[in-house]
């Protein structure tokens, strides 16, 4: 039995790398700094190790050959999921390039809210260490931050000491939209977050009003979506008075139509504040389970984020057309490859098309795929790289045990070679 310390996690997205994990054969136990997201993800036992063809155990070679057979002579393969590490994504893109497939990250419809804003007008953003040392005012918009990342406040707001703040406990936290589900945002000295609640669907109006107030425009209403204008004015004033304000949102939480316009409004508020002479930064809470990794690797390999189509022999990007579910619904797709190396509870989209699943060991299916190849989890069964949710820092994932499970990259490369 050994204990491995300073273990980085690919699961929580915030780049936690202070876990201690006890390894006993292939059994893992988180002994320090676990949380409700990371602990179960690390401790989950290995289940199946054998690939299956139509539910029957098969060798890796036979499964790869069968997968290649299903991909051969297809018109529009779709490779969905894309939840893996950097090397897995590299192999996935190589396979897509060769087979003329669509590559589509499973959470792209969430990321799209940010990407459309970025590609239309850009943004001014910051990263976790800047937040940890500088942020004196955090405005959380439409997002239950602690539900998303349980240790976010502990690690990045209520840290004992910050380089540029007298006391981290004096940071001011304001919620606009969703109220926090717990008390993580309450400061160590008991200061509770200010909460201005509204329905998600009202956020476009509320953020537009805030934007107008930041610019100094006069509004002729007393309230918007139940929030008094005077309250929003107070936020605008605080943003202008802050040394380093940060506006945080989670694109996944903004689940309403045209939420990209709300993201853009937030980004423009940040830009306006900087133009008016204050420092302020945005903080888009990126995804988990390889979302950022998929977009980064696809970015440098194709020039586009992870919703591209290689059918013409070169990558084309369309944030709407190449949606996996839409391609399955319209029957434009004729085979589905689904890659999910992190989460065995996840399910591939429902389809009667031939389906190949490259998944974390232990996956249960409502409908057995034509080919299932269980793979190791990056950061547990093999080393690798994953991006943190602030999109700048790639963490080095460690191999913790010898499970004999192949990596995503090995399996996808085997399929590519069999093709």
């Amino acid at each position, binding site marked *: 039995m050994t204990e491995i310390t*300073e273990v980085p996690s690919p699961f929580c997205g915030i*780049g936690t*790398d*202070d876990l201690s994990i006890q390894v006993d054969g292939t059994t893992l136990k988180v002994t320090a700094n676990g949380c409700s997201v990371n602990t179960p993800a690390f401790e989950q036992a290995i289940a199946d190790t054998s690939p299956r063809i139509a539910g029957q155990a098969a060798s890796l070679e036979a499964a790869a050959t069968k997968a290649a057979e299903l991909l051969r002579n297809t018109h529009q393969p779709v490779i969905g999921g894309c939840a893996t590490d*950097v090397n897995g994504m*590299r192999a996935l893109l*190589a396979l897509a*390039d*060769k087979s003329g497939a669509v590559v589509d990250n499973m959470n792209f419809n969430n990321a799209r809210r940010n990407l459309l804003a*970025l*590609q239309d007008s*850009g*943004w*001014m*953003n*910051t*990263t*976790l*260490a*800047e937040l*940890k*040392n*500088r942020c004196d005012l955090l405005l959380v918009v439409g997002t239950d931050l602690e539900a998303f990342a349980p240790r976010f406040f502990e690690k*990045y707001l209520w840290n004992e*000491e*910050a*380089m*540029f703040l007298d006391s981290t406990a004096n940071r001011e936290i304001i919620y606009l939209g969703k109220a926090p589900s717990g008390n993580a945002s309450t400061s160590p000295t008991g200061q509770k977050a200010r909460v201005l609640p509204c329905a998600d669907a009202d956020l476009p109006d509320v953020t537009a009003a805030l934007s107008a107030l930041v610019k100094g425009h006069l509004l002729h209403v007393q309230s918007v979506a139940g929030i008094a204008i005077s309250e929003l004015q107070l936020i605008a004033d605080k943003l202008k008075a802050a*040394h*380093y304000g940060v506006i945080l949102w989670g694109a996944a939480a903004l689940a309403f139509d045209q939420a990209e316009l709300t993201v853009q409004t937030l980004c423009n508020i940040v830009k306006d504040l*900087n133009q008016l*002479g*204050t*420092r302020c*930064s945005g903080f888009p809470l990126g995804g988990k389970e390889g979302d950022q990794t998929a*977009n*980064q*690797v696809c*970015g*440098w*390999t*194709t*020039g*586009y*984020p992870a919703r591209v189509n*290689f059918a*013409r*022999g*070169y*990558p*084309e*990007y369309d944030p709407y057309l190449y949606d996996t579910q839409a391609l399955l619904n319209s029957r434009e797709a004729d085979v589905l490859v689904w890659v999910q190396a992190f989460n065995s509870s996840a399910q591939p989209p429902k389809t009667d098309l031939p389906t190949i699943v490259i998944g974390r060991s232990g996956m249960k299916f409502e409908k057995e795929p034509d080919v299932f190849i269980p793979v190791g989890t990056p950061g547990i069964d093999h*080393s690798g*790289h994953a991006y943190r949710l602030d*999109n*700048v*820092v*790639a*963490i*080095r994932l460690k191999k913790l045990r010898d499970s004999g499970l192949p990596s995503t990259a090995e399996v996808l490369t085997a399929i590519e070679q069999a093709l």
Partner: protein
Amino acid sequence: MLIKLTGGTVYDPASGIDGQQQDIYVQDGRIIDVPKDGRPVDKEYDLRGKVVMSGAIDMHTHIGGGKGNIARTLLPEDHRQDPVHRTSITRSGNGHAMPSTYVAGYRYAEMGYTACFEPAVLPINARQAHMEMGDTPIVDKGGYVMLGSDDFLLRMMTANKDQKAINDYVAWTLNAAKGIGIKVVNAGGINAFKFNQRKLDLDEKNSHYDVTPRQILQTLAKAVQELGITHPLHVHGCNLGVPGNLETTLNTIKGIDGLPMHLTHIQFHSYGKEGDFKFSSGAAQIAEAINSNPNITADVGQILFGQTVTASGDNMRQHANHRFASPNKWVCMDIECDAGCGVVPFKYKDQNFVNALQWAIGLEIFLLVEDPWRIFLTTDHPNGAPFTSYPHLIRLLMDRSFRNDMLATIHPEAQKMTTLASIEREYTLNEIAIMTRAGAARIIGLKDRGALSAGNFADITVYTENPDRQTMFTKPDYVFKDGELVVKDGEVVKVTWGTTHIVKPDYDLSIEKDLKPYFDKYLTMKLGNFKISDDEISEDGRGSLTAHPLRGAA
């Protein structure tokens, strides 16, 4: 396999060979002496009438790292105009301003380049830089690690830590991030922007730290020298793009007290404020300063007209310049108490007075700096123009009448403000070979590259002599990388994977005693997880590391 390159006209400035007809023998990836044992040649290339140089080296090009990927993601419309098909041996991708990594590698090789150096590797983003460069085929690569706005250094300087401690930190960072040189971008300015300072002159103090850009440059230049790192401190100066910044640049040269210093994309730092538009050329003074200070080298950062995207660590200046964004979208980031970045698309227009004069200023600098060993051919890709415009730039330097024809088409007021028409100099092939090969290898500190004498790696480019130098340099007949034929008639015929060049200066391990608590308390990663291990570069089976000697330790 023994390869013979027969009868080519060789330009190998590192060996003092200026256009002599010579045979070159290659075996096991290296150039060898004429074999005396009479063993048969396995493959012979008849290069009579061809021009032979070593593979070109781009000593400053943004090919890897986060800001490049932001630039890619920001501009789908730019990629859509330049799709690159997959072939039986090459991957698909997209090109133009900020190409995908595979396309960048192929296109560099197809232009005769065999090594590229990313000049702005943020230590905290170094993994990404190496992963992107790891997906850049054929060419060798390496990076300069950015310091100078990182809080750890500024804290050390404020606390008056001695030079030895700073050297240890610099060497530790260089080892951890796996670079071959040290870069400073707007010394202290990226940091000052986080404290809401919007400009920072050479002698202006950071509002939080008791430190000026001049002190940062001196401290880091001294560290580079004392550690024996061959590549001089690579400096992106203060006040990039600001009219009148010529004075800052001259002051920067003076202030370094004779220490080796490389001033990068100096075109952007050579502006006066004379004339009706309060914008004028400072090229003559800058060139004079370079000519009379042998410790100074520079690359130009030439602008060429058309759409591109600027991607820089200098978020202070990029934020100030965002109003010129075309198309109107841009990104600035503060990054990890380490650095920052700014990405602003630009469309340089020949009928815009400022852009036209920028174009002329770059060319003036090229032509007025006398020593080709101390000036380097760059567009600061993609900031001044995409690297694919190098053949055009070479023609501008080598062909005065072509240059003057171009000059006659730019904004008329800009024509009046430049001495370009009167400059007669035309670069020779030997001088081009110095700037893009021998000089570049020497300034970076590459052992056994950039030369064609026996013992060097066989990175070789063969061109057909053509008075139209743009045509000549666009499409080499042959490119050999480590002795393998990778390009024929300007097209990739074999995909290989280059090495990553690094240096490993020594340091006192006790620096980690200070760094570890700093990481634990203030940063978001454990010290041990920050350091990049060798296997991260090599585990994909394609990458490798090549460590170069320190100065005086050859």
